[in-house]
């Protein structure tokens, strides 16, 4: 069955969006867990489970996107293999979660890009890179491209600002529409309900601290034992690396935004001085993004084989690595911007960035979208129960 079969003119079939096998396994496992509930203190998944007596496909999409795939419940499970119940919650939810990315993707005919996502993301980012570098090499005179440019507007000697900004603007418009549609599909499929501003605040707090990778819902927002990655030992390493990545990304995003304000608001052109806000934000952001993604890569490799969802690894690795290159090439540009390598480094950085943003709606980036939506729903359920 192709995912697009269920798309109808006025919406989509709410019942059969997910792979029946993946959804069925989650439902089977949740029925066992709901009669046990020993794990209810770990994260938001289990309290959400206890609010239900039965599970439909929408619940599967919801619970799958609440789960961080940490493994605490697997190592704690009295019903984990070799027990005949064969319960493996992180694995079941990971399979359904991966499937849900494709199910909620917009435009739906492109959902297949989630199938071999590692390859697609790699190709997408590489194509962005090759195209940008190639075009610039072809269009810009060599003495300009390999020249040394100093002072305000130096970057725009290589590429006019209007073009440098127009490309991402067009990409952003597509990305934003795609995210909105994806969110809508998630929201309708899972039957989530908007419960008001406090739910949003709670979801922001949970995201800001990655509360549910803390390993203990009753501990403070910044404390908690963390979660197991390799063996059954808990640590906050993955949580910290993830937050370095997220905040690094947000700082870089802020750097670009501030730069834009400088450009249009104050008529000041990049590059900016080392101690000016856009550069400071970008440098700090870039450094912690590099550390965060490198750490996440290592943690991902350490994941316990029973918890790890092998089919989704390609997507995870491709996303982490491309994010690393986005930040690394940015830092590199900062380092060489006063040399004759500025042109080529700028081309590479822009190429990676363009490629990265273009494939954003079909990359692991969407996990943040659906996780955040799930957190809002979970906060609302918790408040209402």
């Amino acid at each position, binding site marked *: 069955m192709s995912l697009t079969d269920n798309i109808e003119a006025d919406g989509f079939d709410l019942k059969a969006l997910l792979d029946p096998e993946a959804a069925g396994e989650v439902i089977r496992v949740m029925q066992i867990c709901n009669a046990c509930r020993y794990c209810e203190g770990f994260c938001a998944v289990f309290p959400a489970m206890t609010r239900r007596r*039965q599970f439909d496909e929408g619940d599967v999409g919801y619970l799958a996107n609440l789960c961080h795939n940490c493994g605490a419940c697997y190592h704690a499970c*009295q019903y984990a293999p*070799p027990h*005949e119940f064969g319960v493996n919650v992180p694995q079941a939810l990971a399979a359904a979660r991966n499937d849900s990315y494709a199910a909620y993707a917009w435009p739906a005919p492109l959902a297949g890009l989630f199938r071999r996502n590692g390859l697609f993301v790699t190709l997408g980012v590489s194509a962005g890179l090759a195209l940008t570098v190639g075009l610039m090499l072809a269009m810009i005179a060599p003495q300009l491209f390999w020249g040394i440019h100093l002072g305000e507007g130096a970057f725009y000697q290589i590429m006019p600002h209007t073009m440098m900004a127009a490309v991402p603007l067009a990409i952003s418009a597509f990305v934003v529409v795609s995210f909105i549609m994806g969110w809508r599909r998630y929201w309708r499929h899972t039957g989530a309900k908007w419960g008001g501003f406090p739910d949003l605040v709670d979801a922001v707090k949970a995201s800001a601290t990655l509360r549910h990778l803390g390993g203990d819902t009753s501990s403070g927002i910044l404390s908690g034992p963390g979660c197991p990655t390799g063996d059954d030992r808990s640590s906050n390493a993955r949580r910290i690396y993830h937050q370095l990545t997220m905040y690094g990304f947000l700082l870089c995003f802020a750097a670009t935004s501030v730069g834009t304000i400088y450009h249009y608001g104050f008529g000041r052109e990049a590059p900016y001085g080392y101690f000016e806000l856009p550069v400071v934000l970008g440098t700090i952001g870039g450094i912690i993004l590099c550390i965060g993604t490198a750490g996440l890569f290592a943690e991902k490799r350490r994941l316990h084989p029973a918890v790890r969802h092998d089919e989704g690894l390609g997507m995870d690795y491709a996303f982490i690595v491309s994010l690393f290159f986005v930040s690394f090439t940015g830092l590199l540009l900062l380092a060489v911007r006063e040399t004759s390598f500025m042109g080529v480094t700028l081309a590479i950085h822009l190429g990676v960035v363009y490629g990265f943003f273009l494939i954003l709606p079909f990359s692991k980036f969407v996990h943040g979208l659906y996780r955040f939506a799930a957190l809002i729903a979970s906060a609302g359920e918790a408040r209402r129960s």
Partner: protein
Amino acid sequence: MPNDITQPIAEKSWDIIVIGGGNAGVCAAITAAERGCSVLVIDSAPRDMRGGNTRHTRNLRAMHDEPTDVLTDRYSFEEYWEDLMRVTKGVTNEHLAEVTLRGSQELTHWLGDRGVRFQSALSGTLNLSHTNAFFLGGGRAMLNALCRHAESIGVTLIYDAEVTDIELENGFCEAIKVEWQGQSLRLNCKQLITAAGGFEADLDWLAEGWGDAAKNFLVRGTPYNKGKVLRVLLDRGAQPVGALDQCHAVAIDARAPKYDGGIASRVDAVPFAVVLNKDAERFYDEGEDFWPKRYAIWGRLVAGQPDQIAYAIIDSDGVKRFMPSVFTAITDTSIEGLASQLGLDPKAAKKTVDAFNAACPDGPIDQMKLDGKATNGLTPEKTNWSAPISKPPFYGYPLRPGITFTYMGVAVNDRAQVLMRDGKPAANLFAAGEIMAGNVLGQGYLAGIGMTIGGVFGRIAGAEAARVLNR
């Protein structure tokens, strides 16, 4: 011949060997290792299934005079004592019971200092937050933390190793025999701590106490507790304690696995149901008290019925009143239809349910309290929450006795030393956990006390064994 793996274990002269890698055994091992002893822990299960019934536990019962980080209110010695006396009806060694209760006081802190995490009480915990401290993630998570700590302080743990004999002469243990890695090994130790659990997974042994009824029991606990070590100890002159048929047994879903079903096999329908035996007759007051206070008697009740089977029948109003079960209820639009699906005589079942319905008082029931909604003129009476089973569809759960652990074990003193038949303590042989729980728990059951007995006596055994070695 020992190989590379077995040789270092077999050739070492261990200060202390602990048989059984559950809560009691690992608490003993940690306590002894912290006093400088070399300790080997032997578990009969593979690593993934290690630790006996600890895997299936969730909490321990601890006395405390004021609220702690993991327990609300206070649970005084007196209240704890009354609870224990109520369930055991006084069948307990009062001195050892007092040792257990007093020892429970510092248990949560002791475990917490060794990496065990507790959770704040949430839903589904049977409202035990003032008496019981809940392990975050349950007993397996707790045991993982304990084992990790034990290994970090030098304790050696081996799995899939079966103890076949204990060389015990005149109350002195010389060595033990172990089947491990396809080899028969003789391991020397200065002190031996037995924490190898009960015999609930040996249906033949259960039959010695229960007769043929035992063949219809489901073993809710670990399949690895076959009582082999207990058998050796008794054969070698240890003094038994507790009756053969005393155990913790609840009524569980008859469709649960024969072994190892654990908590998820529970059915909490009883207080809101009528429970019929195979003759479609009621046999006990389903609404006698809140389920958390009564679930532990229903294993014995069902065990006492013909063919050790019963059926909880409930309607669509009642089915929402308890936690969902792992097995989907058998459903039908009529009582007769449900009865025939369950294998009951439809007419007889209908008659019993009709009689029950006719005896129900008017008005809604209130499950949050003992609402006194009792049947009128029915035998046996249902004293609370009596509401007609009248709103289809109807739901049925088949019930069987599900045994968690046995109480018959070896007698010990307050130093956890095993007592021999002459009443004298063995010189270097200790016991902790299920294997000696019957000293305290002669009958009945109090949620979480198994883990308390294991933790308290595990610590005592470890400390005493180390003390004998001047550690």
